[in-house]
């Protein structure tokens, strides 16, 4: 299981990998079958649990009349733009905090208070300031997703071995070279871990913001379906979001493996 089992250091053979892939797909099929059986068993009304076929039809209809691409595109645009801004600002702030004592003094208490806060409560405040459109939604995503990026960067940079820095400095590295060639690469596993926590948060917050503020987007569409008691629409939304969430989380851990191929701990537990 991803993130649950101890990392395999040696690559499994082709047969093992095919077997593993088959096992995974049979799980998804098993889940669908279970859903179908439950829906047909008559112990749930179609309103409580619509059958997988009707939900699939609904997804197909939304995909062919263009609703799904628009909604999905907007949700992903908001979540990913927010995530990218949060990643850049977060790593930048983290660097600043580790490089300057004044910044550390100023930001440390703010982060230690801000990180455990349920930032979503500030959503109405953000609406008050920025309105209901993309700026507000993306700002909310940034506000929520930035904290793991900051703390990941701080943890990573503070853990860089002093010997590495001393030798680089002895060899005449300038500040800029130290940053790009020593500090950031050496800290990249923890920075990646922070970002792997940030990404699902970005998606969660984008969806909540859409549900609350309405308009296009998967969250808005689900909320509308729910308020019109359109249970197929709600379940279609769940399936779509589940697939997107899975793809993003998976993509992030593939990216991690690719970026950190050179690093001894290439296969670190995915923080999500």
């Amino acid at each position, binding site marked *: 299981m991803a993130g649950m089992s101890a990392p395999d250091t040696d690559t499994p053979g082709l047969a093992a990998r095919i077997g593993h892939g088959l096992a995974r797909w049979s*799980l998804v099929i098993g889940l669908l079958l279970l859903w179908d059986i439950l829906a047909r068993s008559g112990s749930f009304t179609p309103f409580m649990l619509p059958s997988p076929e009707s939900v699939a039809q609904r997804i197909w209809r939304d995909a062919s009349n263009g609703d799904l691409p628009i909604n999905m595109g907007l949700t992903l645009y908001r979540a990913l733009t927010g995530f990218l801004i949060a990643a850049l600002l977060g790593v930048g702030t983290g660097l600043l905090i580790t490089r300057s004592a004044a910044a550390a003094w100023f930001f440390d208490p703010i982060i230690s208070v801000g990180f455990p806060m*349920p930032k979503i409560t500030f959503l109405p405040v953000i609406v008050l300031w920025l309105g209901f459109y993309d700026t507000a939604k993306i700002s909310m995503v940034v506000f929520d997703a930035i904290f793991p990026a900051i703390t990941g960067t701080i943890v990573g940079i503070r853990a860089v071995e002093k010997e590495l820095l001393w030798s680089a400095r002895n060899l005449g590295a300038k500040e800029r070279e130290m940053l790009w060639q020593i500090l950031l690469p050496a800290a990249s596993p923890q920075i990646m871990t922070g970002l792997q926590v940030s990404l699902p948060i970005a998606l969660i917050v984008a969806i909540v913001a859409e549900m609350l503020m309405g308009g296009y987007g998967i969250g808005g569409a689900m909320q509308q379906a*729910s308020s019109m008691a359109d249970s197929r629409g709600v379940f279609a939304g769940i399936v779509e979001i589940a697939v997107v969430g899975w793809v993003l989380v998976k993509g992030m851990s593939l990216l991690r493996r690719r970026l950190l191929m050179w690093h001894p701990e290439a296969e670190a537990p995915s923080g999500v």
Partner: protein
Amino acid sequence: MNRALRCLPLLILALAWEFISRTGLVSGSALPSLVKIGEAWWGLARDGDLWTHGAASAWRVGAGLFCAIVIGAALGIGMAWWRPADMVLGPFVEIFYPLPKSALIPVTALWLGFGDGSKILLIALGCMLPVTIGAYNGARSSDRTLVWSARSMGAGRLRVLRDVVAPSALPELLSGIRTALAISFVLLIASELIVARSGFGYLIGFLGANGTYEPMFAVVLTVAFLGFVADRLYQAFTRRVFAWRE
């Protein structure tokens, strides 16, 4: 003294807030002065609104988290302890874990309506998997030699589970619960803002929709503060639990 110096940045932020709002750089409704927010908070506390809505929220978080922790920990330890459970339940955990939990809000509303039940179910479902994974990882990492020695000294399987596996699962289980605690606040407030007739989230939405921004800020800051305090208390609690390890 040291502590005061550490908290100084927060004070600076508060003063900057007060300064901006008093000088009218932004309008008073967008950023009410902290003094007025304090007065509004006092008003809400005196009228009892804060307590009735707070009690509704506390019950939902409490009941939801309780279910999540009990079921989640049992599942996680069970899956680590008994292979068939792992084979059957593991895939479900894997499929549902990356699901953004906020997607469940409309479903639980569809199933159980606008009341307490839908929020409790939402929090229980949304917070269960981090606890399960913490318990699973913790229980799997329990030292094989400890298990073997306990077995060879004649401890039954259940005894080993209770005296060896469960305690060694504790650190990761507790950190899973910390994640669950954070998620529970997010789900609670989000679901109350979207579909509810009571609770802190509802109160925030209601006050905001009425254009009474001072009390709205008062409740927002209260919830933010409570989330922070809950996390700090939980950390203090885990430190106490692990006092024996030092």
